[in-house]
Each structure stands twice: as C-alpha cells, then as structure tokens.
C-alpha cells in the first residue's frame, strides 16, 4: 500500500475529506518546486499532483499550458522530475505524490522504465490526461506490479456502464472531472455535479476526487461534501505564478482551501 492508498484508507474510517493540489513541476524551475512541495504539505495539502510538463497539453487550459511552457523553458524533463521526487523523499517529505502528465513523454522513456523509476523515486500515483480506460491496461499492470497507483479519470459525459468499469480499474482514487472542458478556474460549477458525484461514488470502490474548475474555498467546501477529495490546480498555479519566487500567496490559498475541505463532512 503506497502513501496515497494509505491516506484514503485512513480517511475512509474518519470521513475526513482530502485536499489534492496540483502544481506544475519545474515552474519556474525544479529547485523551486522541490522547496515548494513540503510547504504545500505543511499548509494542509493531503496529496500533491506534480504536473510533468508536456509540449502539447491538450487537456489543459491557458493557466496550466503557460506553466508547462515555463517549466519546459527552464529545462524540465520527465527524468528530472523523477530525480526531484527522489530528492524530496530523501529529504524526508512524505506527502503522497501523484505524477500528472501526458502519454508521450512516458512512451518515450518506455512504460516499464518509467514505472520502475517512478516507484523507486518515491512517487505514489500516476495520472495521464490522455490515457482513457481502453489504453490503460499495460501501464496499469506495470504500475500495479511496482506499487504505483494508476489513477483514471471519469467525466460528466461518461455513461453509467463505463463509469463502473473505470471505477473498477482505477487505483488510488477515481478522478472525477467536474466539467466538460479543460483545466482552469470556473466561476460556477455544474448544478448536477452533486448528483454526478453520487453516481461516481456508487460506481467505484475507490475514493472519488473531484477536480477541474475549483478555485475558491467556498467551492471546495461545497464539493467536499459530495466527494472524498477535492483537487485544486489552476487557481494555485496562478497564485504561485503571481508571487514569482514568493510562494506565500499560494500557500495561504492552500491553507484556506485545506481549512474548507477539512471542515467538510
């Protein structure tokens, strides 16, 4: 059982809701990310998704596209991200880490080498934005064998039967995409989202995290009531980018999000 699975196993008993935060590894550079991750955990993030920058992030909105662009410009590669994870773990950071990326860099490294190195470095989960259920078996099996969770996504367009299949196949948690759309903050989330999340939780034995579009503590609190975890990405990436090398605005956002999420039941 990796850190991610342990986290949710623990909170399942207590009903405690988890805050998952997304940052783009290497934005503005990997040294900054390495300093940041423990601070995020300290500020209340229960899980950190480390975005692996990709040249063609077709599931991402402008905020995360720009972050990936900055990370690539600073020379960030998949191998370097894995090396940073190893450093974090050697430095004693124990927050569950999920690598969030696209398929091509993984394919380029090779699925097996990637999984082996990711697990060895100390990652807990992998989430691939352009890897739907049908294409996920090989990577899923390799991950399983190395103790990594391959987290699958479900969307508002996913029909019931398929939702069940994804719910069965996912590991760590089920990532439920709140909106039909790309990543990015939304002023309003769909009215039928609670109902959708009920269906998702019914369809899966894995905990359900809801993400895409969540930016304010109010949204997070409201959603946490209907899910096991809430994911915040673009809003944090934006706050961190605004601060430049000063992470305080981002960290205070995480603190208020954590308070909101952790207060929910």
């Amino acid at each position, binding site marked *: 059982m990796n850190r991610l699975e342990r986290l949710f196993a623990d909170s399942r008993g207590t009903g405690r809701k988890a805050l998952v935060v997304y940052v783009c590894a290497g934005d503005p550079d990997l040294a900054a990310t390495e300093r940041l991750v423990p601070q995020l955990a300290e500020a209340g993030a229960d899980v950190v998704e480390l975005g692996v920058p990709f040249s063609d992030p077709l599931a991402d909105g*402008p905020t995360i596209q720009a972050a990936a662009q900055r990370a690539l410009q600073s020379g960030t590669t998949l191998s370097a991200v894995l090396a940073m994870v190893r450093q974090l773990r050697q430095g004693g950071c124990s927050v569950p880490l999920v690598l969030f990326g696209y398929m091509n860099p993984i394919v380029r490294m090779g699925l097996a080498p990637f999984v082996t190195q990711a697990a060895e470095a100390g990652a807990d989960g992998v989430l691939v934005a352009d890897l739907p259920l049908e294409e996920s078996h090989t990577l899923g099996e390799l991950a399983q064998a190395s103790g990594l969770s391959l987290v699958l996504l479900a969307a508002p367009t996913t029909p019931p039967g398929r939702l069940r299949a994804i719910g069965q196949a996912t590991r760590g948690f089920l990532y439920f995409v709140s909106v039909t759309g790309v990543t990015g903050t939304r002023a309003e989330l769909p009215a039928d989202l609670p109902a959708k999340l009920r269906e998702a939780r019914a369809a899966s034995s894995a905990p359900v995290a809801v993400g895409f579009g969540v930016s304010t503590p109010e949204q997070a609190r409201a959603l946490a009531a209907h899910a096991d975890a809430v994911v915040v990405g673009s809003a944090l990436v934006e706050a961190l980018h605004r601060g430049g090398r000063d992470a305080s605005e981002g960290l205070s956002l995480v603190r208020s999000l954590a308070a909101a999420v952790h207060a929910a039941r």
Partner: protein
Amino acid sequence: MTPAETVHGRFGPYGGRYVPETLIPALEELEKAWAEARVDRGFLDAVVTDLRDFGGRPTPLMLAERLTAKFGGAEVWLKREDLLHTGAHKLNNTVGQVRLALRMGKSRIIAETGAGQHGVATAATCARFGLPCEVFMGAEDVRRQSPNVQRMRLFGATIRAVETGSRTLKDAMNEAIRAWVTHVRDTFYVIGSVAGPHPYPTLVRELQRVIGEEARAQCLQRFDALPDAVVACVGGGSNALGVFTAFLPDTAVRLVAVEAGGEGLATGKHGASLSAGRFGVLHGSASSVLQTDDGQVAEAHSVSAGLDYPGVGPELAYLRDVGRLDVRTATDDEALEAFQECCALEGILPALETSHALARARDVARELGTGKRVLVNLSGRGDKDLGHALAEIARRRPGATT
C-alpha cells in the same frame, strides 16, 4: 477496413484513442454513427452526389507529357485532385464528415487547419449545409495564408487564431481538441487528415479512398494496366492513403510516400515523421512522431504549411513498418523547383505540399525507366501558395542553380 487495420482502431502498435475521458463517449458515438452510415445507401448516395455536383468528382487522370519528356523515364500520370472544389482533396473528407454530423444531429462544426485548405473545405461544406463552423488556425498560419482566411470568413466560418506553442497546425489541433472537450455534446469535430483518435484515421481514409479507386479504374481504362508506382506527399497522410488504399492489395505497385525534408533531415528542420520520427502519442493516436529525447513534440518545419506537422497517420506508420511503403523526403528547395517545373511544363500550379510528390516523382520515373508508368496524386492547387512560394523562390535566387 483495409488489410492494414490489424485490430479495430489499431494498425500494429499504432492508432488507438489517446484522449481525455470526456471525449471517449463522443468517439464511440461517432464510431457507431459511421458504422451505420457507411452501409446506408441513402447516406452514401448523398455523399456521392455531393462529391459529384458540389465537389466535381470524378477528377481527371492526365498524362503529363512534358514532365514525362523532361524526366526521361516512366510516363507521368497526374490524378487531378487540384480540380476538386476549394482546390484540394480535402473536400472528399469534409463532405462525408459534415453529412455525418447532420445525421448525428450535431449543430456545430469545428476544425483545425494548417495551410487553410482543410479549413476552407470545411467552411465551404458547412456553408452549403447551413451549419455554423469554427476553424482553429495557428496565428502564424493566419498571417501566412491570408487568402484562405478570407475565403473561410466569406463562407461564414469563425476563425480562431491560436497563439500557443509554435502557433501552427500542431497547436491549432491542440486547441480544436480543447474546444471539442468543452462543447463535446453538440459539436462535431471534423479532423482534416488520417490522424487523431480512432475512428478518425479510418473514417478519413474511407472518405478519401475514392481518389485511388477512381484512379485505379481510370488507369485500367486508359492503359489497361496498373501503374508501376504511385507517389503522394504526406503531411498527416490523407491524400496519400486516399490514393494508396485502392492499390494496397496490388503488391507489384510501389507506393511512394514523400515527406517534407525541409532544410534537410540532418538539420532537424523538417516534417519527416515517417523518416525521422519515433514511436509516440500525439493528438489522440500512437504513431511515428518527431520529438525530443525527452518526449516533447518537436516543431516541424516545411516551406509548405500543410506538411508542417510533427505527426503522421498511424496507418502510414504501420505500412512503413511492414515494408509496404517506399518513404522518401523532398527538401524545401526541391519542392520549390518542382513547383516551378510543373507550372512551366504542364500549365498546372500545384500546391507546395503536392510539389514534394512531384519532386520525387522525377526520381521514381527515372528508376522505373521508359515503358513504365508512375501515378502522382496532384493533391491540390497552389493558388494559396503564390505569394509565399514566389517570395521563397526570390529569396533563393542569388545562389540558385536552376
């Protein structure tokens, strides 16, 4: 299904459906709708009629006498897709897809475009059928291909200039996919080549195969034999597969795929995904992709916007692997020379994309020798390229040798 499609949606290790989950149900809906439509006589007849009356099919097969004489080898025959409405083979595909969108009750069309030919074909088709249309186009291409932008606007399409990445075709396709994810329920995405997630590579090939089927019948009728080789340029690969597919079982017919050699393979500035790409995933399918050692997709380069793409259709990657394709490249310089040669000797202004095929057709004709025949898919006309090509030619003049 062609022999190449080994498993549903897969061509050997290539193909598949690498997209965000949000799109999977739409792709399944599309696959199902296409499976029904392709055996529906009424639908097929409507497409055939559209292609005849709106598109101008059949397109002619023409013996290029003066190119033949100049090359001094096999006879050169041209399949005249340049005469298709809007000026390239692209319309074969858009008519089928837009008809399919209507059948599926979709109320809105989106498309990506590079040179603008697919965008123009989509916009024209949407105008004819009264569907709103949005075309994503790299901001750099918007600048380079302004006549096509004007045409699309006149056809009522909205142009979305894409400012991300290299601001060319690759980025336009990213943005089109993002727009599709966002409006997936009512929107039909008309992909312009044999790329993208399943079922697009198959769907587009099936809609384009009319080129080769017509050409094959025309060859038999005109010279009572098959051509010894078929040559086509490859960007995403739709005109190439369009003409190749009918000849796939004819193993004696050499199939020559010509990629954008750009400034030369050695310089890294090219668009030769089959020649120099590596296994990867781009825009929803596994194929041969130009990329860095780290798996970032490389920026392609070609004098022709339509070949300026780091990916290629999965079926072509498979056909390469199994040895059915003779993959070659033509550089920017060679394409520009062939462009001028075709104008001067045949009175046909070819697209710069097509000019790559013409450049290598010369070698193929010579290798085959007299008494043989080479069929070249003249995928489009070069009206859109006039300004750009002439500027490129002028820029080369001081050191030019031709």
